[in-house]
């Protein structure tokens, strides 16, 4: 019998949907040429990419020429932020972002600060991990060229009011008769779960990624609104309007487009189903396990995100006891990170180290069933009790 496997780490990456895989294998089997080649084999590959581009553009309510395919969400974030910074630094060197952003954004911003003399304002978040449009508007200066705020947080699932921020920025630009600041949002976690229409969101740049929506790894995209000028951060080819040089990953791009199509098809139903499962799971974990706290916003959170801290227990130990039961989750504990730092997202909520160290993230997805969560609810309380009995930190007293 196959060992039990309950995958609850969909926010880390989603398994590739078999229907996506089929498309990719089919593309590879055809033995395609280089999309830049003039012959028939090349033209065929080019056509696949352009059809895929239209599909992705359609999902965002964008024009196909506004979509740049990249190698990942991280690459898209880099291209957006550095691409804007390098062109528009003559206008100003101030960028606004937020403390809970993904490292792909935060570390790019730190690079701009340390190497190129940019000034970065990182907005603080409230106890649920949220920033407001008001905060953004208050931080704007005459030399602000970019605002970059993630759509939904990858660790705690908190959703930011992107449309509201976008509208406020639009209004500011009109009133001040300026093109600045541009608005970028990292929407890697939001794709497939939230409204992605770039007109409604009022974004100028939007990062999305295939490996979070049951598509292949190694493919991402960046939406760049017509008229917004960015420059390349790598060199050596004409591909993707010179913004992402290098031979295109034709099969990967085709797989991404298929994944986008599939997730759009079932989005409404899936969001409803996952929200129900999520709330069921949160309710029962908090009911069954004392001294546990939900991290992130209770309502404005991704339909598939559950992030709970079990006080007095260290996350890696929890994670590995669950792993032994065939349950795969993730933790914000320092021990699970390469740098041995606790999660910057959970620390930003203004909580103690103990909360970050005891945090566990379960992210649900396309193949999560209620009976899987029931099984987790059966074993999790015992594991927490066992680890608490080994811990000198007395949570009842703290």
């Amino acid at each position, binding site marked *: 019998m196959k060992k039990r496997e309950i995958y609850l780490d969909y926010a880390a990456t989603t398994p590739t949907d078999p229907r996506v895989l089929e498309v990719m294998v089919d593309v590879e089997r055809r033995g395609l040429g280089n999309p830049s080649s003039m012959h028939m084999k090349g033209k065929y590959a080019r056509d696949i990419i352009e059809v895929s581009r239209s599909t992705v553009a359609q999902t965002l309510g964008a024009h196909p020429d506004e979509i740049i395919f990249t190698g990942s969400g991280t690459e898209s974030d880099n291209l957006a932020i550095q691409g804007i910074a390098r062109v528009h630094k003559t206008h100003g060197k101030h960028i606004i972002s937020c403390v809970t952003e993904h490292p792909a954004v935060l570390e790019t911003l730190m690079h701009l600060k340390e190497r190129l003399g940019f000034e970065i304002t990182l907005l603080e978040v409230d106890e649920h991990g949220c920033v407001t449009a008001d905060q953004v508007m208050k931080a704007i200066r005459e030399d602000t060229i970019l605002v970059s705020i993630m759509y939904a947080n990858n660790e705690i699932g908190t959703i930011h009011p992107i449309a509201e921020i976008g509208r406020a920025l639009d209004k500011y630009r009109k009133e001040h008769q300026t093109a600045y600041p541009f608005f970028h949002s990292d929407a890697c976690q939001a794709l497939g779960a939230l409204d992605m229409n770039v007109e409604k969101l009022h974004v100028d740049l939007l990062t999305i990624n295939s490996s979070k929506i049951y598509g292949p790894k190694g493919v991402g995209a960046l939406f760049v609104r017509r008229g917004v000028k960015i420059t390349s951060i790598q060199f050596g080819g004409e591909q993707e309007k010179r913004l992402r040089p290098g031979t295109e990953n034709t099969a990967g791009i085709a797989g991404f487009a298929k994944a986008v199509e599939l997730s759009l098809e079932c989005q409404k139903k899936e969001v409803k189903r996952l929200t129900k499962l999520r709330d069921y799971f949160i309710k029962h974990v908090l009911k069954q396990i004392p001294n546990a706290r939900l991290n992130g916003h209770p309502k404005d959170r991704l339909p598939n995100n559950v992030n709970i801290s079990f006080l007095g227990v260290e996350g890696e130990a929890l994670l590995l006891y669950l792993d032994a039961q065939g349950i795969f989750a993730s933790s914000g504990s*320092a021990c699970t990170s390469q740098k041995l730092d606790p999660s910057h997202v959970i620390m930003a909520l203004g909580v103690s180290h103990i909360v970050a160290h005891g945090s566990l993230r379960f992210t649900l997805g396309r193949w999560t069933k209620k009976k899987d969560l029931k099984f987790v609810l059966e074993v999790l309380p015992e594991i927490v009790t066992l680890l608490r*009995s080994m*811990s000198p930190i007395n949570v009842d007293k703290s």
Partner: protein
Amino acid sequence: MTDLEQDNFQPWFYSDIVREHFFHPQNFLDHEIKIDEYNAMGRAGSPACGDELRVWLWVDGDDERIKKFYWQTFGCASAIAATSMTSVIATQENGMTLGEARCLTPRQIMESLGGLPTRKIHCSVLSDKALRDAVNDYYRRTQQFDKIEPEATRVIDPIARVTDKDIEEAVLSGAKSIDEVAQKTKVHLSDPRVGQEVAQLVRFYLEKYQ
């Protein structure tokens, strides 16, 4: 298909011995300890580093060997396994003498565990420190004050001769980051091993004194 599908796939991040001690920890204190169950107590670590460790020893008054070693830890898999292993080593074959216990090194503990991932060594093996702390506590309780050995300072950067105490001093005098500590102590962050140690100590002391 790939080899990962075959028998040689190692599904576990740590060694088998770590696994055994993690899932079946030995000698951990699973009850409220009573005053007559121990005659020495030691502690090490800080929750900021992800680890907090307490040990309780019962030392035989006649031969001064460790007969019982109870512990509790707020730590990851390797911290739990390392402490469990230390408790076994310290109490086996009639128990270690206090002198032997003082000489137990993280390296010995790590080797008995079949190795640990590099980044985990410094933070997860705290049991030797807690054990030395407990040995001192035993001598304190039995009023053998001449035998108490305060924790010696440790050289972190052999070139700049920077010790852990220097780093502690730097934090106490207001340094708030690794770079500020480096400015004060002239420690060489370019050496990755030094850098890693410094980073951990800085974090430890920042948490301790904030």
